[in-house]
């Protein structure tokens, strides 16, 4: 990788590794960002992209390897050091001070001073205007930040970075929440910055955007460096193969099933201020995906269905039984199971053993008279551990020693052992390795084939498109679209998720 060209990379990582406990988030990863070039970082969820960004931003320090600035090794002791060095990160959802003006947000802590040390608003607004001019956008520096769209907030962040003379701009999935026009505008801004000599690192799940904007792409898989190459001459399929390590068919083994009777019926479900008027049905044998942007209210709907949270209006019916509000116990009795979003907080009791965790949702079934039968508990755990190909030492080991993917299998085992008719899975493969991911997909497919109704919440678009019979798209707390498998594409789902009519 050394022979990239005559010039020095502005910012580079050289053979960087980083581990969190037993999880090796980055293994011997290198990356070179050149001035005037937009560089894409590709990889699936959990491939290590965020860890890499945080290493560049000074949030994490590498366990081994170096960060190089203009060819010289540097150590960022914190985000402030990285900012000082001219590295700016634009996150997906910026955090501005809503009650301050746009200009005040840009110059927070570095306001130009006038006489008597007072803030010179006139200069500040003029400077902000100049920055927006450079970016080629027309934002009013004097308006409050409250009410700005996410796209505009990102522009404010970019202006802030420019005002600090940032030379490296890192954009972590900036387009995830943007509409088509907003994406086009952002790209113009990035192209302008590139021409002005900035080095840009761009992260996106949308391959089209990588091909449109970037000159080079570095691919990570499971924390390891896979390739760094020019975008020109690469096809979508090439890039997917590098990201996934296999062809997509194997990753999404969807079986054709015939939808049976309605197993879950949600009617006009509303929780004030969170989601409203949500209605849909899931039939036996179906996998229905609930897609949408983070914060659209998907997990909240799942929580309300299962009874974790109370709902204010509407009804949930499982197999003909109308569920009382806010009772997970009643939901379970009716045949509902929920594999929650946060495995480590909600899915598992980390201190308990594998067998106790698997038994936890079915303590009633393990009884022999008033007592728990340890033999029944062990049999249940062993049975499901084998069926899900769990990799474990002993069933009495704590679940904390398992890998993320195997922990997720324990959560699945816990719920499948209750014999549900409706399975809700919330981000079932987030943060787990590709191999286990494919196994989870195969399992979901098999379950549907056995007549279980599956409702799958996922932020992973390929997963949604690969696994779902129907896609429900949520936008700002409402169902914005229902798209059958045949019509579901990245474009149709994203346009509904970002609020443009489908």
């Amino acid at each position, binding site marked *: 990788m050394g022979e990239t060209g005559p010039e020095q990379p502005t910012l580079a990582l050289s053979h960087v590794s980083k581990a969190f406990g037993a999880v090796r988030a980055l293994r011997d990863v290198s990356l070179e960002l050149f001035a005037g070039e937009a560089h894409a970082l590709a990889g699936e969820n959990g491939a290590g992209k965020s860890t890499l960004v945080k290493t560049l931003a000074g949030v994490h320090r590498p366990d081994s390897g170096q960060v190089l600035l203009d060819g010289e090794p540097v150590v960022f002791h914190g985000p402030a050091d990285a900012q000082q060095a001219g590295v700016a990160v634009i996150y997906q959802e910026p955090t501005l001070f809503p009650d301050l003006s746009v200009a005040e947000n840009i110059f927070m802590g570095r306001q130009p001073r006038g006489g008597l040390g007072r803030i010179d608003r006139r200069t500040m607004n003029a400077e902000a205007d100049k920055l927006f001019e450079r970016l080629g956008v027309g934002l009013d520096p004097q308006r409050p930040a409250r009410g700005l769209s996410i796209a505009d907030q990102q522009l404010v962040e970019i202006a802030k970075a420019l005002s600090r003379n940032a030379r490296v701009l890192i954009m972590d999935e900036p387009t995830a929440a943007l509409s088509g026009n907003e994406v086009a505008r952002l790209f113009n801004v990035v192209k302008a910055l590139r021409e002005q000599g900035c080095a840009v690192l761009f992260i996106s799940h949308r391959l089209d955007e990588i091909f449109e904007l970037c000159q080079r792409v570095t691919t990570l898989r499971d924390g390891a460096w896979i390739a760094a190459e020019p975008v020109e001459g690469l096809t979508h399929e090439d890039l997917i193969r590098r990201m996934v390590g296999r062809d997509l068919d194997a990753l999404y083994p969807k079986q054709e099933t015939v939808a049976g009777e309605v197993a879950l019926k949600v009617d006009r479900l509303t929780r004030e201020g969170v989601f409203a008027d949500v209605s849909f049905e899931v039939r036996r044998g179906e996998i229905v995906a609930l897609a949408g942007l983070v914060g659209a209210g998907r997990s909240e709907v799942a929580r309300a269905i299962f009874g974790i949270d109370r709902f204010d209006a509407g009804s949930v019916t499982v197999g003909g039984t109308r569920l009382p509000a806010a009772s997970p116990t009643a*939901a379970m009795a009716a045949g509902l199971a929920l594999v929650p979003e946060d495995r480590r907080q*909600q899915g*598992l*009791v980390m201190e*308990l053993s594998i067998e*106790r965790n698997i038994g*936890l949702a079915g303590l009633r079934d393990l009884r022999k008279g008033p007592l*728990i039968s340890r033999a029944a508990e062990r049999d249940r755990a062993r049975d499901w551990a084998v069926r899900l190909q769990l990799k474990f030492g002993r069933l009495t080991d704590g*679940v904390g020693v398992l890998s993320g993917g195997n922990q997720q299998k324990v959560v699945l085992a816990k719920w499948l052992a209750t014999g549900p008719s409706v399975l809700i899975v919330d981000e079932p493969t987030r943060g787990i390795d590709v191999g286990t991911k494919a196994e989870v997909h195969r399992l979901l497919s098999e379950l549907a084939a056995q007549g279980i109704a599956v409702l799958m919440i996922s*932020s992973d678009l390929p997963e949604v498109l690969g696994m779902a019979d129907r896609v429900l798209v949520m936008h700002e707390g409402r169902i914005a679209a229902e798209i059958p498998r045949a019509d579901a594409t990245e474009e149709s789902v994203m346009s509904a998720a970002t609020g443009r009519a489908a």
Partner: protein
Amino acid sequence: MSETTSEAAPAQKASPGPDAPGPGTSRRGVGHLLRWDVLVTALLLVVFLGGSLTSPSFASAGNLSFALGDLGEIALIALAMTMLVVAAEVDLSVASVLGLSSALVGSLWDAGWSIETIIPLVIVVGAVCGLVNGLLVTRLGLPSLAVTIGTMALYRGLAYVVLGDRAIAEFPQQYASLAVDDVPGTPIPYPVALFVVLAVVTAIVLHSTGFGRSLFAIGSQEEAAFFAGIRVKRIKLVLFVLSGTIAAFAGVIFTLRYGSARADNGVGIELAVIAAVLIGGVDFDGGKGTLGGVIAGVLLIGLLRNLLMLNDVTTEIQSVVTGLLLIVSVLTPRLAAVIRQRRRLPAP
């Protein structure tokens, strides 16, 4: 669309559980011997032998019977407290409920009620005291430490309202003897026999029923327990009611045993109870512990108190010893965990 959460998650809680297996296979052999409750039992034997050597009357049946009887209320309350602490809650108002119960017994007896009416009534009052604690904790989501410090003052205050500074004595002999006499043919006082029965029941409930399993899950990770369909609030409410009920019953025994009803009966014994539970190896953060350990802890506290008393050590010093034991029992497992982790580091 963001993978921030997925990749940040391991950073927050990446360390495996404390009882994660080491690289070796010898965990069962050595690890078993190093279990906390086994250590406490060993310590108990040491105290017993030490006591027998230093104080000739210590090991006599009479003294041991007295020591056990003297321990009765603490032991009974410790059973309910164990379940609470395993579920990561605590009830500091138990001694005050005991005092209120004692004051009510005295005042009602003084007013001419029969003991047969007084006892069930007082126990119901104890259950209500526990219910109030439980409702404040589960419905309003207040921390039990704060709630029960409040009700500790409240219930003790009520005890003084009921009885003032008076001391009521002269309870009928047949009831008083129930609280002190031995079960015929044994050196075991009735309250101790009752404790043995209840301890067996508690051990079964805690370690072999779904209810017990739920307590450990709640204590380790309440949210995950709730997501698994466990009725967390209801279970906690039951525990607090149980704790109040047992404390009130202990108040009746205490009153009859000393033949004296006073509002300040049992002041401070909540500390002895909690010390016994923690020395018994129950983690104050919940989720860990065995009833066997707690029973060893209760006996250890009881024998120590008795030994100190036989050697004419003042109650102030006894209190110092209880306090030190409490701190040591909280500190030692943490130190052990740190040492274990240090030792594990060089291993791959």
